[in-house]
């Protein structure tokens, strides 16, 4: 007998339970109830987000692939498969394993598509570092990523980290993985009737039960103990699983394959059946288990890691089993894909579940009310005249460069193997990571971006800026923006004032992607990111990849030589709303999100791409957090071989000096080039109507910024270097 306590304990609402009774025409078994609870959870069923996800563009300049579990694009004969996923709640509860299994899960999504994973990126958000728990989380998450990523042999090539009080009770761990495959070697995540269903990989334990329905689909409440719902990762097994799976797919015997991620067997069985329009007969007694006397529902719900479900051609079982046993992994035949459309699960010769696969796919769709928050207008109001202009602008720059959101993240990325697989052309610390595609003359550039503060100030524009900045980072590397994956991290969707951000951000992403011709090929939604400390900032993390068409035309952000022209493309505007300057120096988070004109942004991209392709520039770097001054400092310091000074003596101070230097106006890029190339660059910028100005030149042992003859900033490179490269570690150690 199913009680209210039972279905609510699994995260189902009363109305949802009634719907289950209606569909089945009887009471569900315990196993069936568990299956519905996960398939209909927000995490798997997208009940509260599907309505808006539909509007995201599925096509763009590059031929797009949108698969069951991941998506990608086609470039020549190569499929580039990529996806991002969140592992927020597990990481808040147990940072090392939460992050590690986040890495493992997304890597599996890529190689189950038949693609070899070639790179990961991590987008992280924590509370501020003055809080001990935030430091614990950061260290734990970084440890988890290095523990898993380094061993599994997929380089962690980039990402981003931000700190803000709003993540104190709910950190974000978003992981993106990219893989490549010959385009005719891809695998699908669906069953084919008549195919044999095999279980491969690790054995099943009691870990992670309820991970997606209980942990991921509700807010954190006070004093809850959710650690038992977090899974434990084994990167060594995953590495073997990658090799065995790719070997298996290359046999041509695979009809469909799916990772057992959220909701484990339940999800893979029912979703493969749904996707293939088949049923499935499964014998749970055949599942390799690592604990005795597991109940059928526990086997179905377990989120033990490093497992997959494969549908293969009949008669090839032995051949497949041999491959997995060579790699020391389980392979067991569980049953068959059938034509009747019914998922039938047996255990100890008893049928424990018998449901039409379609029923599980019918996750409820909720039209969620949304309402602009009452506090929004006040949040947007900022009286610029009340911002006192600091006297010492050099000191301001030092403070900004040492603040955790801006300072270099080498303490983190030096712990990640970012070079294994020998593709990493541009190492971490530039605008985007660049990976060559072996056997071609092309490269993939990848970045993750999202300034969540802008999204709180103006979700529509904030999301557009996330897309614009991601694309800008790619073009600064010499890549044409191609496609997007997203992790939409938001608070409780059942609260209209929270849902308003979600709706507007999705609309912003849609508009910007359509404008730039980039498709959204995959992604994930993470709701309920809120705790007794409050809601997180709306954080629609954008992972974007771009294509470099000539591997020799890759650009990085650091100045390369002395006595070269420093050029600013774009216009300085007094956009200090939501800026780091406003927060770090003036201790305020307010105002309007920066202005963005998509066509100006596009013109900038065209200009930057053209000057890089024509070989006219030595470096390109976009202006983001910390504004123009921080970006210039980064240009000076980013060339690991040789730091290079700069003299900026031709900057227009037509608005307040602190705003010119530290405002975060969009659509700006700093170039460096030999003086003889300047006229050509100017012409290209002019053709695209992009504001162009030579603002100074490289050289010397300091960064100097002058207003006419008046020195505004004069800082020695050695000082800047230690501030830039050592501040993060210092702030971790000094307070621990």
């Amino acid at each position: 007998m199913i009680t209210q306590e039972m279905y609510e304990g699994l995260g189902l609402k009363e109305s949802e339970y009634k719907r289950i009774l209606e569909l089945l025409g009887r009471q569900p078994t315990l196993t069936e109830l568990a299956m519905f609870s996960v398939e209909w959870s927000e995490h798997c069923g997208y009940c509260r987000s599907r309505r808006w996800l539909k509007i995201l563009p599925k096509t763009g300049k590059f031929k797009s692939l949108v698969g069951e579990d991941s998506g990608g694009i086609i470039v020549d004969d190569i499929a580039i498969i990529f996806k991002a996923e969140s592992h927020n709640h597990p990481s808040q509860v147990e940072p090392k394993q939460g992050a590690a299994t986040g890495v493992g899960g997304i890597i599996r999504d890529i190689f189950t598509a038949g693609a070899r994973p070639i790179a990961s990126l991590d987008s992280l958000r924590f509370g501020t570092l003055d809080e001990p728990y935030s430091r614990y989380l950061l260290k734990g998450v970084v440890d988890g990523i290095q523990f898993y990523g380094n061993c599994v042999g997929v380089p962690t090539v980039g990402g981003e980290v931000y700190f803000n009080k709003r993540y104190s009770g709910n950190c974000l761990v978003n992981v993106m993985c990219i893989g490549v495959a010959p385009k005719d070697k891809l695998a699908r995540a669906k069953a084919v009737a008549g195919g044999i269903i095999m279980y491969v990989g690790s054995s099943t334990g009691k870990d992670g039960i309820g991970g997606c329905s209980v942990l991921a689909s509700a807010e954190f409440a006070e004093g809850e103990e959710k650690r038992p719902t977090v899974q434990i990762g084994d990167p060594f097994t995953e590495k073997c699983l990658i090799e065995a799976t790719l070997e298996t797919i290359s046999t041509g015997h695979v009809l469909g394959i799916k990772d057992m991620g959220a909701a484990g067997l339940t999800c893979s069985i029912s979703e493969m059946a749904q996707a293939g329009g088949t049923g499935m007969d499964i014998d749970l007694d055949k599942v390799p288990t690592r604990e005795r006397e597991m109940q059928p529902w526990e086997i179905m719900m377990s989120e033990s890691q490093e497992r997959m479900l494969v549908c293969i051609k009949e008669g090839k079982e032995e051949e497949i089993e041999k491959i997995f046993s060579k790699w020391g992994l389980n392979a067991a035949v569980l049953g068959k894909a059938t034509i009747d459309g019914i998922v039938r699960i047996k255990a100890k010769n008893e049928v424990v579940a018998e449901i039409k696969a379609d029923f599980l796919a019918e996750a409820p769709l909720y039209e969620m009310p949304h309402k602009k928050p009452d506090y929004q207008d006040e949040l947007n109001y900022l009286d610029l005249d009340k911002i006192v202009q600091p006297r010492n602008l050099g000191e301001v720059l030092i403070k900004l460069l040492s603040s955790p959101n801006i300072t270099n993240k080498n303490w983190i990325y030096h712990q990640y193997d970012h070079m294994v697989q020998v593709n990493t052309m541009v190492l971490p610390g530039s605008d985007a990571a660049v990976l060559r595609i072996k056997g071609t003359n092309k490269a993939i550039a990848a970045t993750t971006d999202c300034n969540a503060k802008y999204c709180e100030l103006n979700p529509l524009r904030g999301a557009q800026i996330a897309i614009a900045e991601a694309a800008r980072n790619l073009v600064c590397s010499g890549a044409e923006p191609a496609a997007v994956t997203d992790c939409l991290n938001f608070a409780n969707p059942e609260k209209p004032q929270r849902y308003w951000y979600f709706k507007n951000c999705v609309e912003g992403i849609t508009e910007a992607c359509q404008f730039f011709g980039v498709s959204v090929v995959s992604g994930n939604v993470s709701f309920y990111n809120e705790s007794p400390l409050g809601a997180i900032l709306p954080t629609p993390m954008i992972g974007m990849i771009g294509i470099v068409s000539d591997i020799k035309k890759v650009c990085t952000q650091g100045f390369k030589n002395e006595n070269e022209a420093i050029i600013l493309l774009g216009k300085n505007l007094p956009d200090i709303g939501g800026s780091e300057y406003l927060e770090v120096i003036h201790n305020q988070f307010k105002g309007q999100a920066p202005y963005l004109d998509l066509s100006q942004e596009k013109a900038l991209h065209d200009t930057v791409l053209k000057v890089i392709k024509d070989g006219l520039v030595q470096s390109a770097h976009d202006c983001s957090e910390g504004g123009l001054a921080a970006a210039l400092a980064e240009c000076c310091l980013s060339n690991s071989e040789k730091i290079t000074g700069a003299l900026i003596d031709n900057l227009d101070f037509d608005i307040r000096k602190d705003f010119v230097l530290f405002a975060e106006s969009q659509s700006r890029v700093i170039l460096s080039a030999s003086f003889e190339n300047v006229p050509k660059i100017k012409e290209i910028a002019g053709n695209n109507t992009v504001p162009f100005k030579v603002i100074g030149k490289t050289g010397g042992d300091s960064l100097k910024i002058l207003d006419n003859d008046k020195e505004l900033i004069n800082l020695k490179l050695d000082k800047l270097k230690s501030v830039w490269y050592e501040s993060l570690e210092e702030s971790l150690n000094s307070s621990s």
Partner: protein
Amino acid sequence: MKFGVIVFPGSNCDHDCFHVVKNVLGQPVEYIWHDDIFGGEFDCIIVPGGFSYGDYLRTGAIARFSPAVNSLIDFANSGGPVIGICNGFQILLESGLLKGAMLRNTNMHFICKYVYIRVENIDTPFTNLCKPNQVLKIPIAHNEGNYYIDEVGLKDLKSNNQIVFRYSSKEGQIADKYNPNGAKDFIAGITNSKGNVLGLMPHPERCSEDVLNSTDGLLIFKSILNWTKVKT
């Protein structure tokens, strides 16, 4: 010259070494599965980096018991050139082909970054194309690269010229601040007393192509080819 790359479950630089030998050096190369034995069909064996058997025990401690490592010991004892990179170096230490042991990096973190190493001995199969005291720009990526050997052992290494690489500055200066992992006497790579077995923590296969950030690693691979030419 035919190369063999040993593959343990958990090796993750096997493909990279294979790629460099095949596509950059243009030499024949085959994988050797850890469960297999091999003989004289190879001219040089690479023990690649990674996490053999997960390295959940001491690094390389399980790999030494594999059939392929048994063959490797025979191959090395008969004078065949062997190069162990990173986890490969750790395996060579565990198998007794090289002397010493690995401790965790002094900062207790995995470290992945470009470093500089100074070539201390150019009279080896692996460095004969380098200039004396040449500095190579080469990446490291390890958790346990803090090489340790007792004083007696160190004296032997020195007197036999077995120290091949030391961590240094870009200019070749040796000092604590250029030692990334705390390695004894700044050691980044050593040979056995006969000189035909090299173990090194840095990854030459990661810096052997123009599109990557250095091509200094190629000097090591090309030296191996050159050595057989010199020999024959």
